[in-house]
């Protein structure tokens, strides 16, 4: 019974969670471009760009995702095209089991620092909405 309750709790948690984000690019030498998945924050040097991927809590690529910046004078965000499919496995219930979710086009964005300051990126998708706190340093 306990494992089933845990699985049910996990399923409810996953359903309630918004999108998750993963960095796809590295910063240039001596500059910063860091996405902290746990803290849902991004730190960028001015003039540096970071590509990141949006996926649902289940691991599937986000569907219908779009992003905006509260303050484009600090950081801006653009959609990105990835010539790649996302391979995802997910945990299914009831009758818990791992299953292959299939290949799907990835959902990605590029954010870049315009000037030092703080702003918020808002990502909206069919999988839910999420915010990323962005800090741009010199």
């Amino acid at each position: 019974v306990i494992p089933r309750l845990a699985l049910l709790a996990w399923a409810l948690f996953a359903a309630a969670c918004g999108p998750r984000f993963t960095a796809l690019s590295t910063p240039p030498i001596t500059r910063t471009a860091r996405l902290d998945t746990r803290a849902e924050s991004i730190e960028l040097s001015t003039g540096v760009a970071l590509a990141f991927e949006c996926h649902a809590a289940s691991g599937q690529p986000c569907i219908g995702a779009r992003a905006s910046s509260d303050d484009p004078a600090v950081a801006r965000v653009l959609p990105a095209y990835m010539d790649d499919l996302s391979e995802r496995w997910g945990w299914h219930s009831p009758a818990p089991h791992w299953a292959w979710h299939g290949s799907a086009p990835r959902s990605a964005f590029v954010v870049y620092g315009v000037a030092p300051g703080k702003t918020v990126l808002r990502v909206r998708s069919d999988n839910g909405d999420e915010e990323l706190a962005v800090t741009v340093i010199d």
Partner: protein
Amino acid sequence: MIRPALLSWLLCLTAACGTGALGQSRTLEGHGRAADPLSAPLALGASFSPEVVITTQGSAPPALALMSVRPEIVTASGRTLFAKSPGVSAVLIREPNGAVLDLLHVWVAAPTHLALHRLGGGGEDLGEVRDAIDLVTGDVILLSPRVYAGTQRLAGNGESAWSVEPPGIARILRDGSSERRRLLAREPGEGMLSVRTLGRDVKLQISVIGAGS
């Protein structure tokens, strides 16, 4: 069974996947067989017209544009980047007003010295000319200025000014490329070749002897 996306990822681990941060493009310096990936800062004041090769599979790219995220460092106009001030800026390769296909961080550095390189007939680099050049009247050699920051050769081209003193001993001929000149030995004598580009100078002593000497 290996899925196609996993196979593509494995191939990227074992082969060059491009110079863009997303591995979907190569930004080449030069064209055709002589093209090399951009692997150095742009020289301050220089322009750079890269050949951007998109490496997506199954689809040729749409019309693309270069976009600098920090125009005070690098500006993008058409297919050319202009190095405005030292620093770093991401350059996005994107559909005009559309999605980003790849990105490249471009550095700009001030040149610290200028060297003249001699080129072969096919444009191959024969190395830096460090000493005086002896020529026989009628000789033609191909020269190209190269700017450096420390030991690193910088990318990009700038306007260059060439002169020979006294002007009678040799003539400087353009060959259709902004970064190359032909030096034609005309009359016997001693002189000095001067070249200035991107704020740096280089001088080389030249000596021309008659064909029958």
